[in-house]
């Protein structure tokens, strides 16, 4: 079986560096898992859906509303092809955007470049949809404005 597949065994040096690389990667991944956070990507903890929501807790999700030059208030999807950023990314940086609302200017500019045929956005309102749960089942829904910005 060896003939057509070349040599079967690796030279000692080949085994040593492979084990060393494996060990180093696993060590960082282990540290990331036990003590690290997302900053260690790609070797951080696997935190997808790792947070707990109490059975009577609240579900928060962001959405973006905008006033347009046409005088309407519309919902703008928080997607890269609309405003250059994903919803989860805006959520991950929400504190930063609340402290510095002027960062929203770039979202409006991205929208103008990415959707040139849509009406211009004159003001952005970052909203949170809050769903309250009762025994893991949605009970009540309402919206809250988190930060807004008048487009320059």
């Amino acid at each position, binding site marked *: 079986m060896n003939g057509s597949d070349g040599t079967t065994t*690796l030279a000692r040096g080949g085994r040593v560096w492979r084990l060393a690389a494996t060990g180093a990667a696993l060590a960082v991944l282990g540290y990331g898992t036990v003590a690290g956070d997302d900053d260690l990507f790609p070797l951080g903890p696997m935190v997808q859906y790792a947070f707990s929501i109490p059975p009577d807790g609240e579900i928060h999700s962001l959405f973006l509303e905008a006033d347009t030059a046409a005088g309407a208030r519309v919902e703008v999807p928080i997607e890269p092809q609309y405003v250059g950023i994903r919803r989860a990314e805006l959520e991950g940086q929400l504190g930063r955007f609340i402290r510095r609302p002027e960062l929203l200017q770039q979202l409006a500019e991205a929208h103008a470049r990415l959707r040139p045929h849509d009406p211009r956005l004159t003001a952005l309102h970052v909203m949170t949809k809050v769903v309250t749960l009762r025994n893991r*089942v949605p009970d009540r829904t309402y919206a809250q404005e988190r930060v807004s910005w008048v487009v320059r």
Partner: protein
Amino acid sequence: MGGALTRWWFAPADPRRVTVLRRIVYLFLPLDMLLFTGSVLGHTQTASAYQPVLLARLLHLPGAGPVLVPALFAVVVVAALTAAAGRLPRAAGYTVAAGYLYWALLAMSYGKVDHDHLALITALWVLPTVTPGGGRQAAGWAVRCVQVAVVATYFLSAYAKIRWGGWEWPNGATFAWAVSRRGTFLGVFFAGVPNLLWFAQWGILLAETASPVLFLLRGRWLYAGVAFFLGFHLITWATITIHFLPHVICLTAFLPLERLGRRGPGPAAARQFSESALPL
């Protein structure tokens, strides 16, 4: 001890499994860059949202720019297609590994890190280590690394759920949260079945914890184990549009891919296969 460890990490594998895995991974990559990490294209519009993760800071990597992103895309795709064709496995392979890692860092440095890329990035770094005629141990190590990354993604996410969510995680409402935010028609339907999402949380936590069993399974049981996790990803895709495809394609490292493309394996080939010590 050292002997057993070495035997496990270097359990010989058919180099043809790596050949097939290479084709799957490299041909998948352009799709991933357009569909799953395609936010990088949008990030060229939002420079102020660049919040580089540690590795990007250490390497002083610039954020997504209107020249950089198309250039990086072109380099990675050309190198990936070259490597998929079996040409320059080392040079093209490492170019893809480094270029795609930069791409992934750009995708994850704007406020949200995804966790479905560990196995894919691992595969990209180990595949170029297997050269034509490189031998069955070299192939075995590469296959093993991808398998370990796949299982680590499951097992460590079970650990993370307890670390971040606490022991109350399986009794919480995390799946209701997921369906509320991004549920499909099917997801909303399942959410309406009393307690189904609650039981599903227990099921997933237990399955992720048990995932290292994949290393112990052989033959039909291994296929069943792989099929179980494929089914899990299919359901999360159908209910909350989370597909984990970059990870799913790496699940195939558990399968005897070397049998693909072999025309009608005769009894001799089948016997040879059953006698080999593949890390199935």
